[in-house]
């Protein structure tokens, strides 16, 4: 009896010492491959990513190369072009009534806001630092990526220049609202979609207030002061009180496309310069 009991305890102990293999069911896409070429992959941890080491067909390689080329062209040619165009158009105004071109330089506030916006892009994951700058990349790639990010910063500064009123009380009111929103966003949990939606709404509202409401409050420049008071008393009063500049209507159209280009650029901006 004793020996039987001892044997049972021994068996139970042996079962307890059996090695436990932790793993999960991995489903692969039904690809027909030669069993000889397939490599054995052992899953040792729960979250391990299994690399598909099967040899790629010629078509797959071609598709991958063409995708990589398109991404490179987008990053190094299209995005800088979009952002530099925004930089060019952001400070462009047309004087009224002469129609002369005015290049309005960005205020210091625009640079500060652009810097905060860049931090926001990094925080929200729109831009991943490791995806744009890495020791594994060549120096040329790091410089090229730096140039792309510089154009993004310049465009961000100019978008604030485009949407902020040029001077007077409205400038400070708008600046305060922008700063308040950006500062709040800085501490909020964002994902890329939410950030883009938030920026679209912020810039859209600023555009409407500046180029529809404030622009329509400004008295026409062609009128004399006396004629203005006689015919457009309210507009003349608002122009004087709010120190509103008198620009040609074409300015609004230019700035509309500036905002659209900027948001398009952000939409196309990849998280990383490397193809996933």
């Amino acid at each position, binding site marked *: 009896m004793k020996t039987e009991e001892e044997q049972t305890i021994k068996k139970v102990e042996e079962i307890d010492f059996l090695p436990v293999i932790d793993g999960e069911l991995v489903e692969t896409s039904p690809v027909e491959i030669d069993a000889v070429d397939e490599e054995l992959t052992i899953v040792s941890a729960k979250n391990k990513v299994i690399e598909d080491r099967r040899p790629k067909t010629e078509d797959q390689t071609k598709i991958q190369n063409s995708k*990589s*080329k398109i991404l*490179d*062209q987008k*990053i*190094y*040619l299209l995005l*800088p*072009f979009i952002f*530099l165009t925004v*930089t*060019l158009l952001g*400070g462009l105004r047309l004087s009224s009534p002469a129609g*002369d*071109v*005015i*290049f309005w*330089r960005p205020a210091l506030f625009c640079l500060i806001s652009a810097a905060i916006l860049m931090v926001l892009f990094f925080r929200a994951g729109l831009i991943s630092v490791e995806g744009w700058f890495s020791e594994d990349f*060549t120096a*040329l*790639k790091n*410089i*090229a990526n730096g*140039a*792309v990010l*510089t*154009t993004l910063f*310049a465009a961000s500064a100019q978008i604030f220049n485009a949407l902020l009123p040029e001077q007077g009380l409205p400038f400070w009111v708008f600046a305060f609202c922008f700063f308040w929103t950006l500062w709040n966003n800085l501490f909020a949990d964002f994902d890329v979609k939410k950030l883009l939606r938030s920026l679209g709404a912020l810039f859209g509202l600023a555009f409407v207030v500046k180029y529809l409401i404030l622009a329509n409050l400004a008295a026409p420049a062609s009128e004399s002061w006396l004629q203005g008071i006689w015919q457009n008393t309210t507009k003349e009063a608002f122009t004087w009180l709010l120190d509103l500049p008198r620009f040609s209507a074409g300015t609004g159209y230019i700035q509309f496309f500036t905002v659209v280009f900027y948001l398009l650029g952000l939409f196309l901006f990849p998280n990383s310069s490397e193809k996933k």
Partner: protein
Amino acid sequence: MKEKYLQILGIFLTVVYGFFVAWLYWAEPKNLEDFSTKAKETIENTTTQGQIIIGTYEVDAAKFADGLKAFRTDNFVAARSFFENADPERRDARTQFYIAYSFYRQGFGKLYNDDELFKKGLEQINRVLTLDRNFKSDDTNLQMKTPAELKNEFEEGLRTTVEDFNPFRLTRERK
């Protein structure tokens, strides 16, 4: 195209377009006509700056000769304009000395001197002293050969003293 070439092209185009945008905001042309004028000015300035950096900057001899001709015929305004165009960077002591001298000759009066021109002349001669302290003109038509003499003349001319009311001053000659 290879990734490397695409990156080089991207950097090149970004720099060129970026400089163009920066230049537009710096020069602020108002229309297309203004655009071409300012572009020409910028190219000329850049060329001159480049010449200074590589040490090949020279005064425009033809313009200098025109200035000297105008100076000798007492056409001082035109002379100054020629001298300024001959040495746009104001780096040649000889040309700058002639500009200062033109202020003296134009401002000189037997009864009284033109203080405004003398003040400008004094500023100009100080510039000559900064450029070359030991400068000495080889022009035989000039009675004052050094910046120190000319400076003294400007300072004396600007100072009001009892000597200014001496009737014999009317007999003095322009140097």
